[in-house]
């Protein structure tokens, strides 16, 4: 046996290499960049938004109660409620389309589709999820509106909330379907077998066992879909129009937060004006709305992941 002292010398011989330290420093810094990004988002949005509210023409009360959003008018009004309601309106239409279609597609994929079918449909949905929103906008404007909406609902304008909502809905189907499918797949196969072995049919198995077991994941997919619908920009900008007043008619144009941001930035609004600053006030409004939804979805999704790990 070797000498105790030699052994101790060997065991206490720690090796450190400078390259390891450098790399570690770099990757640590990268991770902390995430915080930096968030801080800069909040900081830039806030500072400019504060400028916005400092304009005497803008009142906090008016921001939330006025029923028109006309920053570039002679007598500008800043009724964000118009934008928020439009945003939610279109988002709800989108959800009405995407939740059932997305969820049922997910159930089909995870519970009924053969391996081969699944192998085809899953990538197709993924491609669908990757299609740029400007394409959906084009599709809404040039195909959905003339071929569907205007044909079946006469009197609809070229720009209308319905068409935009439907297109947004179609856009988020893959998100909902894919996350729900993941959630259903995260449920161990053994539960499915357990149910079938008790003499349950496939329908009962998917509705009574698999669906509840994946519920939190499915809800997370819904919330995330909703958040996506709210933050969607190009579709609503292209197909939703810019009707700056409070209005609940799906056939008419509407004005969402995102499209108003795009529009303000498109115009030659000079830096530092109130209209320009309004961009950031809208930005922070949108940020807060999606922030709450994202965190909520993440919280619920985390919970379901824990269940089967």
């Amino acid at each position, binding site marked *: 046996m070797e000498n105790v002292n030699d052994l101790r010398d060997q065991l206490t011989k720690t090796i450190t290499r400078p390259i390891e330290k450098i790399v570690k420093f770099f990757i640590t810094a990268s991770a902390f960049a995430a915080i930096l990004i968030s801080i800069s988002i909040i900081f830039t949005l806030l500072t400019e938004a504060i400028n916005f509210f400092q304009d005497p023409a803008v009142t906090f009360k008016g921001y939330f109660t006025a029923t028109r959003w006309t920053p570039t008018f002679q007598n500008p009004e800043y009724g964000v409620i118009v934008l928020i309601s439009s945003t939610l309106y279109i988002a709800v239409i989108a959800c009405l389309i995407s939740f059932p279609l997305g969820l049922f597609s997910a159930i089909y994929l995870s519970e009924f589709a053969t391996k081969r079918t699944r192998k085809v449909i899953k990538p197709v949905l993924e491609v669908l999820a990757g299609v740029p929103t400007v394409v959906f906008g084009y599709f809404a404007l040039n195909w959905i509106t003339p071929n569907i909406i205007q044909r079946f609902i006469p009197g609809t304008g070229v720009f209308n909330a319905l068409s935009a909502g439907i297109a947004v809905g179609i856009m988020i189907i893959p998100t909902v379907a894919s996350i729900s499918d993941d959630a259903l797949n995260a449920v161990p196969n053994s539960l499915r077998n357990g149910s079938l072995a*008790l003499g349950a049919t496939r329908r*009962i198995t998917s509705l009574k066992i698999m669906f509840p077991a994946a519920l939190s994941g499915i809800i997370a997919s819904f919330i995330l879909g909703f958040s996506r619908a709210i933050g969607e920009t190009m579709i609503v900008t292209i197909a939703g129009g810019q009707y700056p007043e409070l209005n609940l008619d799906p056939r008419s144009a509407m004005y969402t937060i995102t499209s108003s941001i795009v529009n303000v930035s498109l115009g030659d609004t000079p830096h530092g004006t109130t209209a320009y600053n309004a961009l950031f006030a809208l930005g922070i409004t949108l940020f807060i709305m999606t922030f709450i939804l994202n965190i909520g979805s993440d919280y619920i999704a985390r919970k379901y992941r824990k269940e089967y790990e």
Partner: protein
Amino acid sequence: METKETVQVNSESVFNVTDLSVSYGDFVAIKNVNMDITKNKITAFIGPSGCGKSTLIRSFNRMNDLILGAKVNGTITYQGVDLYDKMVDPVQVRRRIGMVFQKPNPFPKTIKENITFGLKVNNMTDNMDDRVEKALTQAALWDEVKDDLDKNALELSGGQQQRLCIARTIAVEPDTILMDEPCSALDPVATKKIEDLMQELVKEFSILIVTHNMQQASRSSDYCAFFTTKTSDDGKRRTGELVEFNETSVMFTTPDKELTEQYISGRFG
């Protein structure tokens, strides 16, 4: 169909397996199985990994239907009825022939709901509470959970979960229980409990169990079937075959086949 009624059923046996083989696509997993499974006895399937034990036991309640490409040839009759007859509904078959799986798989619901689920899909909705109690009692779990019926089943220990799975299986009053390595995810203490339970249950049910654990087969089964994989002459295909089917006490003291002896005494391969 008429002809089936004339089949002479040995009153002792619950399954008659004749020339059974199961393939996955082109691959024959197990072939030429002939055996009669005796009623109210524990029959164990043993053999090296991949010899087709799971494949075979899944044929007894048509769980193989769910596996893409799985194809069953030959016949399994269950109390005289051909299980693979076109008219037979696999859903009904599974109501009569319960199955317990390798890993405990309780539904992520309450203990009670785990049992009532099976009752509901089988339209056994009368006296649900009594049935729940009876099943849990039979599965030797009642005392441990009777005050917590609304607890989530996932909070139970592994052994308790497996007993719950047995409880929900027997709640729907099957005649036969199939078990595919029901203890392999459990520690010895929980395993012992399940084995004791099997001794109780066999008074009322016929039990088929796949086990990797030879000791388990030897100490708890009445009959024992030993399977192994044989390689085809050209060395390309490996197919499971039944080597010996015997009373367990005979199998473990004086097996008929040399191969069995090698396997049970650990000199295999």
